[in-house]
Structure formats: structure tokens, C-alpha cells
């Protein structure tokens, strides 16, 4: 999708606002919201310029939002799901949020997702956790997670520093009521918040390099700025 938006190029960041149909573009495509809205900024902007650019972008976003007032109850919003458990674990680590992972049969998913709306969209919960539902590709999920695990249930998982392993903090039955799930989440999130500090991006990456962390998935990492369909070779560091 990034390639399609960026004229065949594959780059680190891409931005666009789409109409609710997911097809019509409401802004230009750019590598940042400012570029998408056509707001110019210098190559090395000072804090005052950044503030002004951000204000113009926010104004433009309000302008679009006014044209599209919500037409449905936000308490019934679709609950987030990931492509895979591995992705959920990594993103939860990156965002430093607990992961709520529901392991159920495919037949149970529709009912479970409806029930989880009452959990995920609650004001005490929204934006604090990630949610994922097991799929056929997640059969080996328990191999990267420590702690007791039943064959099915709702697992509250803390992802590790590099998002490749996890720990089960609490486990609930699939039949648990929404308010019971929220209560357990609140307890675990409070403990988690007290025990963690925000990662420092630069230190995290440096530690990962020192300790040999290597994350790979279906997509190669890197950029294809010339749009030839191949990831560009990494630039060599100059020796001092």
C-alpha cells in the first residue's frame, strides 16, 4: 500500500487522509502530515516554526473532521486486531502497553469481538492496551510466552523489551464479564506502569545492536527510494 501511495517507492513514513470509504484521498500523499496538507517548512525548523506548522496541520484536520461528524456510537467501534501474535507482541512493546490476547476458536471470534467492544471502548480502557485475537497462524504463540496458559482464554501479556517474548500477567475465562476483565486490566496496568519507564529510542537501538537483536518478518526492512522494486543498499558509514 505504501508503494502504491508513494508512486512505487517504499519509504519509512507515508501519510494521507482518506474518506470513510478508504478510497478517496482527502489530502495529498506525503512523508509527513505537513507535506500531505501542503504546509511548507524549512529543512531545519526552529521550535517556533514547528509550532506554527503543527497548528496549521491541526486546523486542516479540524476542517476535514467537521465535514465528517461521527455517524455511529463510538462505544461500538471495531476492536483492533493484528495480523499475527508476533506483530501484536512487537507493537505492544513499541507502544509500551499491555496486550490483551484472546485465544478462541474461529467460531467464537464474532461473539467475543462484540463482547470485547465493551472492554476496549470503555473510557478507562481505550488507548491504554492493545488487543489481539488468535488466528490459525498463532498456534505457537505459547512458545514465546512465559507463565501458565490454558488452551483458550483471555490473556493479559506484558511484552519484553524487544517485543519478541512475553509474560502472562493474568488469565481470564472467555466467559468473563466485561466489567471483570476491565477490573483485572486496571490492576495489572497500574502495576505495569509503576514498574516500567519509557524507553529512550537511541539507547534502545544501541542496546539492541550490542546484544544482537534481529527482527525479521515477511517484509524486508529498508527503503526503496528509486522505486525499482528492490530495497536500496545501506549507505556505508565513513571511517573517521
Amino acid at each position, binding site marked *: 500500500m505504501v508503494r502504491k501511495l508513494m508512486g512505487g517507492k517504499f519509504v519509512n*513514513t507515508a501519510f494521507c487522509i482518506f474518506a470513510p470509504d478508504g478510497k478517496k484521498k482527502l489530502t495529498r500523499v506525503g512523508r509527513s502530515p505537513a507535506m500531505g496538507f501542503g504546509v511548507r517548512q524549512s529543512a531545519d525548523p526552529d521550535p517556533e516554526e514547528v509550532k506554527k506548522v503543527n497548528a496549521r496541520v491541526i486546523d486542516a484536520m479540524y476542517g476535514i*473532521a467537521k465535514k465528517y461528524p461521527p455517524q455511529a456510537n463510538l462505544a461500538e467501534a*471495531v476492536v*483492533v486486531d493484528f*495480523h499475527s501474535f508476533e506483530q501484536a507482541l512487537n507493537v505492544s512493546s*513499541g507502544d509500551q502497553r499491555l496486550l490483551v490476547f484472546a485465544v478462541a476458536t474461529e467460531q467464537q471470534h464474532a461473539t467475543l469481538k462484540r463482547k470485547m467492544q465493551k472492554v476496549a471502548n470503555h473510557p478507562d480502557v481505550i488507548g491504554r492496551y492493545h488487543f489481539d485475537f488468535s488466528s490459525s497462524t498463532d498456534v505457537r504463540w505459547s512458545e514465546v510466552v512465559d507463565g501458565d496458559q490454558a488452551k483458550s482464554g483471555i490473556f493479559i501479556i506484558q*511484552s519484553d523489551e524487544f517485543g*519478541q517474548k512475553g509474560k502472562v500477567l493474568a488469565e481470564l475465562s472467555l466467559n468473563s464479564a466485561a466489567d471483570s476483565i476491565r477490573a483485572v486490566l486496571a490492576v495489572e496496568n497500574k502495576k505495569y506502569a509503576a514498574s*516500567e519507564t519509557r524507553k529512550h529510542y537511541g539507547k534502545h537501538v544501541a542496546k539492541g*545492536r550490542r546484544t544482537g537483536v534481529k527482527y525479521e518478518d515477511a517484509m524486508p526492512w529498508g527503503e526503496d527510494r528509486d522505486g525499482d522494486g528492490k530495497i536500496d543498499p545501506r549507505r556505508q558509514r565513513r571511517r573517521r
Partner: protein
Amino acid sequence: MALLMVSVNARGPRPTDMGASPQEMGGSGVVWYTTWGSAVAEAKRSQRPIFFMAAAAQCGGISGVF
């Protein structure tokens, strides 16, 4: 506005230039959809536009960071 950030694997900004998120640990942050399908489903349901942002949950193969 429904927010979608697609997790992609690509080279990011210089890591040394980036620090820590100022967001409170355990606090409420951006609610984002991690798949295009779920974002479009919610956008159609609520008739809200989609803020599409591609990002990577790794830097040069080092996972666990945005």
C-alpha cells in the same frame, strides 16, 4: 477521525536524535488500527475519515520501538 498506522519495515530517522516518549506510562494514548481492513471497517461504520500513517515498530532490525 479514525487513525490507522501501518507497521512497515523500513529505515527510520537517526536513532541518536530521538529520545523517550513524554507520554505517561499506563496512560491513554492514540487508539490506532493496525490493519487496513479493520480501519476501513471502522471508518465505514462511523463515517469518519482515515488518518493513514505508515510507521515501523523496529529500527534497522531492532524491534520493540517506534
